[in-house]
């Protein structure tokens, strides 16, 4: 119960820390950073985007336009500029799109104000409105569609968990276009509701928008009313992907035997399914409904990064050499490998250091322009250790301190962290699940599927259940969890490798592939 009260404090502290750390990390990780897209980088107009690698704030963008009654896939650019004034973010979205083959163009400028409010538990509630009259002109099928009015509302909840920031939100909007000119010109009204899901973290980020559109056309010719209507379901998703591949060396006389390459790339998928009337040869709507379904994809070129080759000569042929090599390569396991003993038990301090290097820091929104002021006094204040038995200058001090501030560890009570004690499997899993913030997936008093469920410390059952559900414990085939056993270097490596695969790939499936599938 005390947790919630102090969370706010924890969170604000975290922001300070992360900014400072971020600077250090950027230097080290710049090369390894995937192309990054945060929630909102697709906009809220039903399109997908991919960051331009050469121009800041600019995205390659694709959107399906239904205003004519036939879906038109328009492609072009989206420029996003954001300014962060603390509790309000003002964002300008400028679209320039075209479908040259169908002679269609679109220009649009939307300016949004997003108000943020941080709640006691660290969650951030956002609400977005249009701050100025938006402009939009579509040329398609020889007609000009001019935006007359636009009501838009977005609300979102961001939950900044230690390793992953989760977002869920919804948008609704009503757009009215005038077709052609004149006071009696026909109108097309598009009403939309959408759901947003997103997560941000170091290894990957994903955002999904599922939108339902109602398109209705209204024309008055004298006293005659001409109407038609249709619906569309649009699913948009953007996510990063990663792949580790092993490349063997061709020359024989080379100091290392081969190495891993990590590839990252992003893709965005747009999938729509629309039911619209068929138009007759005169352009008049018939009663027959046509179903349009298509998808399109934007993909970035992969970025390859060679990983360091650790000296694991003494482990040739070892069971889990591959994950251990990769973890060394991406710096999760510190050192260069020659003294790595896979069977050695891991201390609490070593474990935290590895976890923190595995989850890394959550990158900041690339579109936001803020003049970050790093207060040197604050830096000094950071030196205070959260635990009585962890002193500045101790091994892994920075990681332990960071983990404590991000709420991943609380120590073993009475302000003692016990860094030199061996960590148990139950503790290890609890820490991972807490970092992911996914404890809520299972009931607090969950029953785990392991044979030795009753022997698992009760505080860890929820975490073990969650970890088992999301596949972090996949390597455990025996059905026995043995929560009170110590955990070896090798088992730690397997678990953290699963964590990175999970964070880098699997979690995104829930936000991407599976959104299209069902």
């Amino acid at each position, binding site marked *: 119960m005390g947790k919630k009260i102090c969370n706010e404090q924890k969170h604000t502290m975290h922001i300070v820390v992360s900014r400072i750390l971020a600077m250090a990390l950027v230097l080290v990780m710049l090369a390894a950073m995937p192309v990054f897209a945060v929630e909102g980088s697709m906009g809220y107009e039903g399109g997908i985007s991919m960051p331009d690698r050469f121009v800041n704030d600019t995205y390659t963008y694709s959107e399906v336009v239904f205003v004519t009654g036939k879906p038109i896939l328009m492609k072009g650019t989206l420029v996003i500029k954001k300014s962060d004034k603390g509790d309000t973010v003002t964002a300008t979205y400028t679209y320039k799109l075209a479908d040259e083959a169908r002679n269609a163009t679109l220009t649009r400028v939307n300016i949004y104000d997003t108000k943020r409010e941080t709640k006691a538990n660290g969650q951030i509630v956002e609400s977005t409105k249009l701050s100025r009259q938006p402009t939009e002109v579509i040329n398609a099928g020889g007609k000009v569609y001019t935006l007359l009015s636009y009501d838009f509302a977005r609300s979102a909840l961001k939950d900044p968990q230690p390793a992953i920031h989760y977002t869920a939100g919804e948008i609704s909007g009503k757009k009215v276009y005038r077709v052609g000119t004149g006071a009696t010109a026909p109108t097309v009204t598009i009403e939309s509701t959408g759901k947003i899901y997103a997560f941000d973290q170091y290894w990957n980020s994903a955002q999904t928008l599922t939108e339902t559109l109602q398109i209705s056309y209204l024309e008055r010719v004298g006293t005659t009313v001409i109407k038609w209507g249709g619906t569309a379901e649009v699913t948009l998703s953007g996510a990063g992907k990663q792949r580790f591949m092993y490349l063997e060396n061709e020359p024989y006389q080379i100091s290392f035997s081969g190495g891993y390459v990590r590839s990252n790339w992003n893709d965005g998928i747009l999938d729509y399914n629309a039911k619209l009337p068929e138009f007759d040869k005169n352009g008049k709507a018939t009663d027959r409904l046509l179903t349009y379904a298509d998808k399109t994809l934007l993909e970035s070129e992969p970025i390859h990064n060679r990983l360091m080759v650790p000296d694991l000569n003494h482990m040739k042929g070892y069971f889990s050499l591959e994950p251990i090599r990769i973890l060394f390569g991406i710096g999760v396991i510190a050192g260069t490998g020659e003294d790595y003993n896979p069977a050695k038990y891991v201390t609490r301090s070593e474990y935290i250091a590895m976890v923190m290097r595995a989850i890394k820091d959550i990158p900041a929104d690339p579109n936001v322009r803020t003049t970050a002021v790093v207060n040197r006094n604050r830096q000094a204040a950071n030196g205070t250790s959260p635990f009585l038995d962890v002193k500045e200058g101790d091994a892994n001090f920075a990681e332990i301190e960071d983990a404590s501030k991000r709420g991943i560890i609380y120590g073993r009570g009475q302000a003692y962290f016990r860094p030199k004690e061996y960590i148990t499997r139950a503790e290890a899993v609890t820490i991972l699940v807490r970092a992911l913030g996914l404890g809520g997936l299972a009931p607090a008093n969950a029953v785990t599927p392991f044979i030795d469920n009753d022997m698992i410390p009760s505080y860890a059952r929820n975490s073990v259940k969650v970890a088992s559900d999301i596949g972090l414990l996949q390597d455990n085939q025996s059905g026995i969890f043995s929560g009170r056993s110590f955990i070896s270097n090798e088992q730690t490596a397997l678990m953290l490798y699963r964590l990175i695969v999970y964070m880098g790939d699997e979690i995104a499936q829930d936000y991407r592939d599976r959104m299209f599938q*069902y």
Partner: protein
Amino acid sequence: MLKRLRAKKILIYSILAATLTAMLSGAVVTLAEETPERSFTGYALALPILANLDYTDVRQTNTWAKEAIWEISALEFMKGYGEKRFGVNETLTVEQAIAVAYNAVGREADAQAAAELLDRARAADARLYPAPKMWSDGYLQLAANDGLITQQDFIDALQTDQLALTGDNFLRGASATREEMAVFLGKLLTLAPINPQTRLFNSYRDWQEADPYNVPMLEAILQNGIMHGDNTGRFRPKAALTRAEAAQILVNAEPVTLPLLGLSKFKGTIEAITVQQDNRNGTAINRRKVLVRNSNGLLHEMNLVEPTVSFPSSRNELSGALINQFESVVVNNLGSLGTGSLLRAGQEISYVVDDQNRTRYIQVAKSGLSTTYILGRVISTDVATRGLVFQPYQTLPFADIRYADAKTLANIKLSGNTSAWTVSNGAKIFSDFVYKTFESIEPETHYILTVQNGMVTGMDGVTVDLLQEEGIVSGIVQENNPDLGYITLYAADGSGISAGLENGYASLRTYPYAGSITTTRDGKTATPESVLPGDSVYMRLDDDQAVEVISAASYYVPVHGTLLNRSGNNLRIQLPNGQVSNYDVPIGTPVYQSGRISSLDKALAGDDVKLLVQESGGNLAIREVNISRSPKLVDNIYRATFENTDDIRNLMTVSGVRRYLNGAWELSDEAGMMSIGFADGYQSNIDPRAVGTVFFAVRKDAAGREKIIKAVLRDDERFESVQNDTILTATPDGSRLQLYGISALVLVDEDTIVVRDNRLVDGSAIRANDQAKISTGKIGSATSLQADVVVAQAETGSKGLTIYRGRILDYVPNTTLTVESFAKLSGVKWDFSNTPKTFDIRQNETRLLEEGGIGNMRDFTLAEWKGKTVSLLVDGSKVLEISNAPYGDAALTGKITGYVGGTLDTDGKWVVEPSGYKISGARTYNPLKYTWELGTETEITLEPHTILLRKGISVSASGIQIGDQITMIRTVGSAVGRIIRVE
């Protein structure tokens, strides 16, 4: 077991109260070893005393005074007669009574000194012998000095001829009365006589028998609890005092007498005994350390030194052998006498020590440790005395809150009754899984006391909100049995699956159903049957602890996978991690596709499915099945000469590409080399340097690019053939196929590309009677064929669409269309029927095709259309298309090789639909000869009202694909298609 429970419980609480703030499992806080408050040795005379007091007339009888006799003997207040006889029922003479009284207050030495003084005054021959006789005089002298007897009495007493004395004289040899003893003791103990007659003494029926002058002292004796009278309400003041009575009186007087003797008596419980055998002095002795938790909560220590051989020692004390000084203690262990070896941990004892810190006597009051656990609330604590005032709620069988009776707690009424305890200095006090000091215990906190032999030796803080509304229990359902009417939850912390001890709890977590139960599950009204294992439930219990209300929340977890096989309601699913699981979907489980209700029949092998599954213990419940909205279809299958693979860009380069079309390897669009990417998640195991023919299946990604979803490399040196046949039998795993057409077995291995109903599957999905086009290779003289590609189609009884032609007779808007007579297209011929026929018109589905393009059914009127001849594309009786295309009865077949007209955008999507096709292998039907003849046509044209059908589905012009074998109905000699269809 206790320890384990406690450790567990501490953890439980932390979860229950959501106060887990520490990684705790191994939290061990070590306390410094407790320093004993006092330390005692044994008593060097213990063994001789023990030898003396083992009275035969006490040991062998059941006298009630046994304890008292041993105690006062051990403390040397009274002595026996020697020869191990105490003389239990003998009476005491007055002089003996006086001696006993003096000894009891520690004035034996004074008496001896007085006696020696008297004796020395006597003539040598008159001196008294043996010593006790002489000492008696000393006691009498003291008694006279102290006013116990008068001077006259003393003179009488010293009369050498006692027989001369009469009843009026003081007779030292007369039996002492109880009244006399009371007076002697009272005076010696300097009790203040209580003069105004208070209640006690005159409540005895025989109080008037007592000497009135003695009554105040008797009252004092009674009030100090030294004497009590008999059980008939008589004090019997004039009755003779027996030695047994005297012994008990002395014990009763101990609170007053012991301090006079420099002795102290304690009560306590033995916590631990350690024995060290000491062999250092050439003999073996035991150094026995006894740790006693004193009733004040502090620790006392006794260091006893004992012979290792059984008592009495066989060593001869006169032999000059080295003798250790044994310092033991007289122990009365519930009626048997002995030394420290009788002591055991857990015994509740009273013990007497002297002012030289020697242990003089130990009496065991209870042999075993009696432990009770009391749940309650701290009212106050007193740090100085380690006192605790506590309001007990209930006793528990173990120090475990799970045993608490929630109902009693809920209904607790504050009666004001409290209990006071002493808390052991070594008590384990926990709260919130950390040790606490006694000082830090706060009032109004809840604890479970561990009370051992009347002392609090453990306190376990209860951090749950104990006092709350009654009758609500919660947990996760382990078993719900509506038939027998009970529901069992897991323990509150999620444990409870182990056999053994934990299972024993199940009865504590089982609740019977009440007569009627209100149930909600996931916020909806439900039946008790719908509550499944794994649900989180809250239950309201009635007065009989039966379940009245259940509110359940499900915990379904999505399971994603690819359907390998479906037989009936059993789904065999490959999970993303490669494992294969079987799920039996209960009848009635909703099945959805694209968010709409569907059925399991729609799930074909190769489809992705998502199940919502609740797994708990051995139970598995499936809430719903979702079938992938768009099946992952195989778009093409190729064969080519393998060139290489590129790991970095994750693609494969091949040459000489051919496409598998309708059971034939046709040339593809690509000439020369072709590079094609691997799909995400597909790992090819083809060696980049391999040589051979590669077969691969592709699927288009969202950008329309073909990606390899499965590839297999085969040796070039084979005899290849394609079998277009029906499967006769297939083994369950699909590894061996028997075909109708050929006798050779077809072997399917895990590399074979198997496609069924356009989905990539494994061999197990192949069924007998499937239509299959199998590309095979045969090595050398092998008798069986190795399958490279199997494309199977389930046997379908597709009715397809029908094309009619007729003259319009009647039209009811949006309802029906009637023709006067009609012709039905059968193959390439029209079958004429001279009867009217009525078709259904559907507002959403019926489409009008006219010369200029699509017409509008809203403008379709009988007036305009009556008498006109139209072609109708009909599904059953439902009209899909009405076309006014002119009549055609000439047939043409051919293979589409390309499109004519139309425009594509950069993504390869049609902006303007094609206006015709290029064809090859044209043949025309000669209705006269009933034969197909070679045609010369290389191009055919479409009109807006051409009816286009592909595999039973109405398509647009671009829906007809290159490679399709078409049948076209046209007007003789025209290249314009009226009806084009692909089967």
